[in-house]
């Protein structure tokens, strides 16, 4: 099984819906250790993406969809998440350039490129209490799944589960990047909002792929 542009567009639509549903949760997390806008920023960004999806040509490749998401998030999010996710989707597009269908290996490569883009942009390391702490376990889990010949949906499911665990695992950390770094030890006990939105986005990817794969 592999996934094409249709899945990708579905993923984006579902991402927008999931972000909208979790807007307040992300705002609340960001209010604890940031400026309280992460839910608003992400919702603004994905709403703008939704509005542009129909402009895609009928023969758009997965990479074209990712590029559209990238440029739209960069232009509309307004917070750190904009350049970070924007760069992630842009590098992800580069990793699957020209491909019509993405198998498990391609999806793992896509996720790795996205994570590398975030690190390139934001210079965070693992353990800095950022979205990287959700992405890196996700990338590793996806690679491991590919190593066990998992299909596309299973690779995404592994990534999503690892991202969720990674997001939870940011709670005991002190932040060394982003606004939460102002808080020193007082960030302990709070989940990083960007790690949480990462978990939501990867869960959406897996859910949509599962839906595709299931019937």
């Amino acid at each position, binding site marked *: 099984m592999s996934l094409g542009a249709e899945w990708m567009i579905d993923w984006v639509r579902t991402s927008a819906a999931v972000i909208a549903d979790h807007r307040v949760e992300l705002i609340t997390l960001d209010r604890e250790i940031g*400026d309280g*806008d992460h839910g608003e920023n992400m919702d603004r960004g994905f709403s703008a993406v939704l509005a542009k999806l129909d402009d895609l040509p009928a023969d758009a490749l997965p990479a074209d969809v990712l590029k559209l998401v990238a440029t739209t998030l960069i232009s509309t999010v307004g917070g*750190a998440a904009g350049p970070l996710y924007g760069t992630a989707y842009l590098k992800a597009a580069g990793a699957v350039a020209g491909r019509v269908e993405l198998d498990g290996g391609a999806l793992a490569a896509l996720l790795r490129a996205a994570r590398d883009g975030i690190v390139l942009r934001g210079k965070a390391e693992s353990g800095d209490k950022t979205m990287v702490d959700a992405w890196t376990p996700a990338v590793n889990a996806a690679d491991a799944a590919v190593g066990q010949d998992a299909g596309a949906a299973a690779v995404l499911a592994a990534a999503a589960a690892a991202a969720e665990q990674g997001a939870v695992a940011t709670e005991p950390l002190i932040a060394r*990047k982003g*606004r939460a770094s*102002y*808080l020193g030890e007082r960030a302990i006990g709070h989940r990083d909002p960007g790690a949480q939105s990462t978990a939501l986005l990867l869960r959406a990817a897996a859910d949509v792929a599962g839906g595709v794969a299931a019937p």
Partner: protein
Amino acid sequence: MTVGLVFVSHSSKIAEGLVDLARQMAPDVPLVAAGGMDDGGIGTSFGLVTDAIARAEAGDGVIILCDLGSAILTADTALDFLDDDARSRVSIVDAPLVEGGVAAAVAAQTGDDRDGVAAAARTAVPAA
């Protein structure tokens, strides 16, 4: 109650914008803009700074951040005109206005005392 902050700038827009910015991460801290001259022009105002100090004082003292040197001179002069008690609870911290102001606001929000807030302002580096 928290430490209060006064932002002294030559520009009313800078001081007000900094209140908006710091407010996001410090909703409960008295943040008071003292920017521009009395008529709104570029410069500093002894009166605006003096009033701002009074408004920022919520019982736990006040930290003042300034932009350029003449803002510091104005703030220093304002302190000289306070009575000893008020004076003893106010200090001017030598830190970059915007970056130090945000860091100081977060420190005040989380309950740091005046020394802690001043230290946060001084060690502020752009967080990325």
